[in-house]
């Protein structure tokens, strides 16, 4: 087993990317993810990697598109306003069936917003952001150690399903330091990139990477085929973690940093006799609907906790078909909900049951 080292979330992500075989990074500085770029700028030259600071987020994501087309494992990272700029390119990457890893260390919005932690890009990450029918696999780590393991998964899932994968963190996870270990990354069995535009060398017919299909019936067929792949991802890759949910009356549900705060609230509630549990989605798309449906059979109410005005709550309600009341507790703009606030809301719900 590897030794534990104390490291920042952003830097852990960079090191995990290297361990996962990523050697190309294109990015643009923005708070609060800059440490990731800086880390790779320092480390990549030592491992034969290419770090390139692009002229814009728009250029960076299109460099990612080019590198992915050429068959490389490639990553870019940004924070909320930068992800908006990258959204055009993300749509093209999805529409061209290319694997790529995009990191969003979220900050407060809309507009320039703020630089403190936020989860207000949930809609953007899971429902689109760019134009057209497409999906991203969205992974939501809640610790520095999980940043490492999910970064490994991100590259594998991108290659396996030929689609962009987003690691959705927040300023808190990016900045926090925790002891982690870096295990060696072992690939899943992944398909060969026979589609890559890595030059024919006169040995095969030319490959084309493209998202343009001018005939509507052809485009529809391409999108339907892609959605068949998405259905496979939904069936196989949805992940969640539960804590004290078996006998819980109230299921608190949160992802990323807010799930850590919510867990503290669950412990406090349990200590005072309220049967609370925690359901933490690890994949935000595919959303772990089955876990919600399973717990809706035994729980009396759900409480969604987010650093936003309430975005994931819609997926919670949809997953359980509104069969139980779904309450909300959240702060936004970079404000972080306290365990006390979550506890108070849960007590209110408990009193009404």
């Amino acid at each position, binding site marked *: 087993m590897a030794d534990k080292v104390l490291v920042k979330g952003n830097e852990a992500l960079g090191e995990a990317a290297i361990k996962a075989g990523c050697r190309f990074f294109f990015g643009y500085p923005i708070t609060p993810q800059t440490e990731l770029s800086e880390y790779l700028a320092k480390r990549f030259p030592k491992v034969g990697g290419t770090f390139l600071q*692009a002229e814009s987020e728009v250029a960076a994501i299109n460099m990612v598109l080019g*590198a992915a087309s050429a068959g490389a494992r490639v990553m870019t990272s940004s924070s909320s306003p930068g992800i908006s700029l990258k959204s055009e390119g993300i749509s093209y990457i999805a529409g061209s069936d290319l694997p790529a890893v995009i990191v969003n260390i979220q900050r407060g919005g809309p507009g320039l917003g703020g630089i403190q932690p936020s989860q207000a890009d949930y809609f953007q990450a899971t429902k689109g952001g760019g134009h057209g029918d497409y999906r991203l696999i969205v992974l939501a780590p809640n610790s520095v150690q999980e940043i490492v393991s999910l970064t490994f998964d991100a590259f594998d899932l991108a290659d396996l399903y030929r689609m962009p994968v987003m690691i959705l963190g927040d300023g808190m996870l990016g900045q926090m330091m925790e002891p982690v270990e870096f295990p060696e990354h072992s690939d899943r069995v992944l398909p060969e990139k026979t589609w890559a535009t890595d*030059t024919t060398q006169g040995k095969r017919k030319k490959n*084309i990477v493209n998202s343009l299909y001018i005939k509507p019936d052809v485009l529809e067929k391409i999108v339907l085929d892609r959605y068949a792949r998405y259905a496979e991802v939904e069936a196989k890759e949805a992940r969640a973690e539960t804590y004290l949910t078996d006998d819980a009356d109230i299921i608190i549900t949160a992802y990323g940093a807010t799930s850590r705060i919510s867990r503290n609230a669950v412990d406090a509630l349990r200590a005072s006799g309220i049967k609370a549990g925690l359901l933490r989605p690890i994949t935000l798309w595919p959303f772990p609907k089955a876990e919600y449906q399973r717990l809706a059979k035994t729980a009396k109410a759900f409480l969604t906790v987010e650093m936003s005005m309430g975005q994931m709550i819609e997926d919670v309600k949809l997953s359980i078909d509104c069969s139980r009341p779904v309450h909300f507790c959240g702060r936004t703009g970079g404000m972080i909900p306290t365990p006390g606030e979550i506890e108070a809301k849960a007590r209110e719900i408990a009193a009404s049951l």
Partner: protein
Amino acid sequence: MKTVFEHPKALSDVLMHYCPGCTHGIAHRLVAEVLDELGVCGNTVGVAPVGCAVFAYNYFECDMIEAAHGRAPAVATGVKRVLPNSVVFTYQGDGDLAAIGTAETVHAATRGENITVIFINNTNYGMTGGQMAPTTLPGQVTTTTPYGRDVKANGHPIRVCEMLATLSGTAYAERVALNNVKNVMAAKRAIKKAFEYQIAGKGFSIVELLSTCPTNWGLAPTDAMKWLEENMLPYYPLGVYKDIGGDK
């Protein structure tokens, strides 16, 4: 019997969608001839733009990528960084390269990105039906400058080669025209030189091809050639604007 003229191997044997009299066909052929003569088609990745040449990915026999509007130099950068020993080119129009993609163009050049840009300047957005481009001449009528381009309201046309020649990363920048046989021959020499510079690792190379758009200019193909000569050549003088030459 000696073959003196044949279909370039690097040019796909398919029907092109370009309008009658449009010079895109000539430009495509020249690029393909150069890829054949340099023997690099099998080691080349081309990047198509958004605009009239959007389907260029169907017309070249090398691996091709279709980029978002204006982003071809960024896409080409990504490819070239992964495959530094390959030949990478973009094929872009004036709206793509000098309006929506100005930043990508300028920064690929200033980085000295070792790619070749084939730039078609026909003074309008052809694909969308003839709107004002960054290269539309003062006074020129387009569908969005129906009373002629008023530089006070719409700004001045951009001279791309002159602009890029000021950047240290640009190794080679030449403007040529496709309006007569002599100029077409010169255009091919320029394209070949640009690719040779890339193969030699000299940095960013661009060839601007003054081209005609008979359909949107509302002119017969031969009149369009004449219009190019009389109106474009004075504003966009032909010539080499940057050539680092030597063994650098």
